[in-house]
């Protein structure tokens, strides 16, 4: 595959423009460079190339090596820019769990997470190739009421989590209900995420059984520019209203309850499985969709604004005096009425395939983090249950809430502030 200008050879079966490029050029070696030249030549000659030519992907365009720190004041996977894939695993403790056993379990799982998120195989894994592309893997632990009871620390469970309300529109199925422990495993790469989840559940197996797995996705990395708000399966940009200023994000997320000092640096999570009737939604005219949502499909901009991040004005009226956004539009009903109602939404779409009749089991894994469920998700969901245009197509079929412990410093483990 080597050519030099001094060595004219018989014509190769390459395009003439490739040879033009080669004339007087440096020696070519290797298929990769040849591929690059072929692709470049194809482009010069106007031939359509599907995607980048083979061999042109460089380290700069791959994301597998990127990591998110595991240790720190806060657990990762909360304020972390959302990864393309997310898996929520609800675990229940086997009988016989106690504080000491929980400490042992959490130490092992934290160590696994600390290694996996940095691209290393966990201890006792026989090889580390799958772990070597961490792809911004995060592992986030959540504690349900049962874990506090098993640890003998029921008083340390936030009251709203120990006793979480139901809502009038709920159609909750026990299969998707509260678990003692949650693992939230997210990564830009689904193979990485699957491997990490498997290793974690394997090491949790002596202590837990799996109640449910809820796996989801947003747009693949690279479909749009990094940072673009992902679309949900209804076609809407999902998460636009999240605070983006880090100082405001901190205000929204981290525990401020002085009665729960073990939770300082931690948060609270609500995970709602929202089934969406997409076939019916697909038949709704785009204008009606936008009216129901309060935002435009194309770019997520509110109907009262021009750009995605313009704040939706629920009170804005048009020239004839009518409200621009319907009062029951989802974005209007969901909008925080005070700072305390804010959440950081980290929802994942789910698509669990087709039923025999051709309808799909699809929806949204609505995961939202906040300092206090009682002042954020609960009043917002009450408002949505009372009235929300999207209720026509959405049904909450699963619900689980968790206290999310603070981050672990180096040398320690997540949950140490509760069970150590």
């Amino acid at each position, binding site marked *: 595959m080597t050519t030099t200008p001094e060595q004219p050879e018989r014509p190769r079966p390459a395009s003439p423009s490739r040879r033009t490029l080669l004339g007087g050029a440096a020696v070519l070696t290797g298929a990769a460079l040849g591929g690059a030249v072929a692709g470049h030549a194809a482009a010069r000659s106007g031939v359509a190339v599907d995607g980048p030519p083979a061999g042109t992907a460089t380290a700069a365009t791959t994301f597998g090596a990127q990591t998110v720190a595991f240790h720190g004041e806060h657990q990762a996977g909360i304020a972390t820019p959302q990864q393309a894939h997310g898996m929520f695993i609800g675990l229940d403790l086997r009988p016989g769990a106690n504080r000491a056993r929980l400490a042992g379990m959490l130490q092992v799982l934290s160590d696994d997470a600390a290694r996996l998120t940095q691209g290393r195989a966990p*201890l006792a894994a*026989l090889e580390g190739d799958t772990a070597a592309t961490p792809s911004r893997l995060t592992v986030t632990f959540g504690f349900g009421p049962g874990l506090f009871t098993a640890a003998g620390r029921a008083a340390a469970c936030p009251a709203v989590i120990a006793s979480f309300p139901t809502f009038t529109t709920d159609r909750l199925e026990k299969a998707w209900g509260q678990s003692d422990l949650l693992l939230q495993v997210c990564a830009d790469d689904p193979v990485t995420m699957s491997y990490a989840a498997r290793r974690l559940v394997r090491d949790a197996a002596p202590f837990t059984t799996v109640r449910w797995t809820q796996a989801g996705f947003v747009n693949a990395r690279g479909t749009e520019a990094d940072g673009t708000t992902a679309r949900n399966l209804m076609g809407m940009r999902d998460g636009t209203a999240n605070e983006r200023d880090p100082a405001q994000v901190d205000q929204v997320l981290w525990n401020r309850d002085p009665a729960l000092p073990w939770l300082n640096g931690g948060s609270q999570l609500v995970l709602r499985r929202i089934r969406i009737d997409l076939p019916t939604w697909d038949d709704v005219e785009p204008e009606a969709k936008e009216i129901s949502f309060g935002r435009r499909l194309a770019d997520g901009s509110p109907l009262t604004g021009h750009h995605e991040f313009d704040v939706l004005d629920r009170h804005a009226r048009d020239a004839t005096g009518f409200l621009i956004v319907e009062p029951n539009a989802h974005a209007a009903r969901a909008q925080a009425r005070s700072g305390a109602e804010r959440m950081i939404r980290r929802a994942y779409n789910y698509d669990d395939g087709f039923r025999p009749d051709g309808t799909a089991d699809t929806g949204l894994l609505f995961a939202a983090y906040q300092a206090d469920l009682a002042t954020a998700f609960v009043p917002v969901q009450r408002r949505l249950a009372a009235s929300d245009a999207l209720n026509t197509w959405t049904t909450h079929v699963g619900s689980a809430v968790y206290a999310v412990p603070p981050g672990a410093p180096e040398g320690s483990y997540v949950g140490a502030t509760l069970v150590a």
Partner: protein
Amino acid sequence: MRTSHRFTRTTATATGLALALTLSACGGSSTPAATTPAATASSNASTGATATTSTVTVSDAWAKAMPDLSTSRMTAVFGVVTNTGTQPVTVTGATTSASPMTELHETVVVNGEKAMRKVEGGFTLQPGAKRELKPGGDHIMVMGLTSPVPVGQKVKVTLALSDGTTTEFDAVAKPFSAADERYDHGSGHGGHGGTGTKSMAPTPTDSATPAPLATSH
């Protein structure tokens, strides 16, 4: 296999030390925790000393959890052993908090199958060298467990070194269920615990051609 022969390149004192540990291990139910200082040991070393500053470090240490001792009272410790010093050093023995009997083991291939056996003379590390103790390879064998080792428990391990120092580390117990190799020793210790009998190497059907790995699931 001549694997064990590479460990004989040690000082005579270390060899004698290893033999002393071997004899006491085979003969009785307890292994002395103390190490006999080698002739070149630092003046700070003494019988039963806790770790002086050792040039040998151990990282990524873990032990196979044994929450149930009804089928086996053995476990193993793994990790990466590094000689950070400027002289070769031999790991001559080990003791743990989990049992009175600990040996250094290597994995060899016997009749086409992997098998484990005690290493005579210990593991020698050149300056700067790392040796990975891992399933299917060299490891620290812990026998006669006195109580279960649940997942998450820390097993305290002390390595005895040929320079008279010791090095201590914690090995966290983890679930591990991959096939255990056959234990190859004439002393009648018997096979290792473990539920699988899956061989890690293909079993040859004749001497020339190994059979393909069975895909049994």
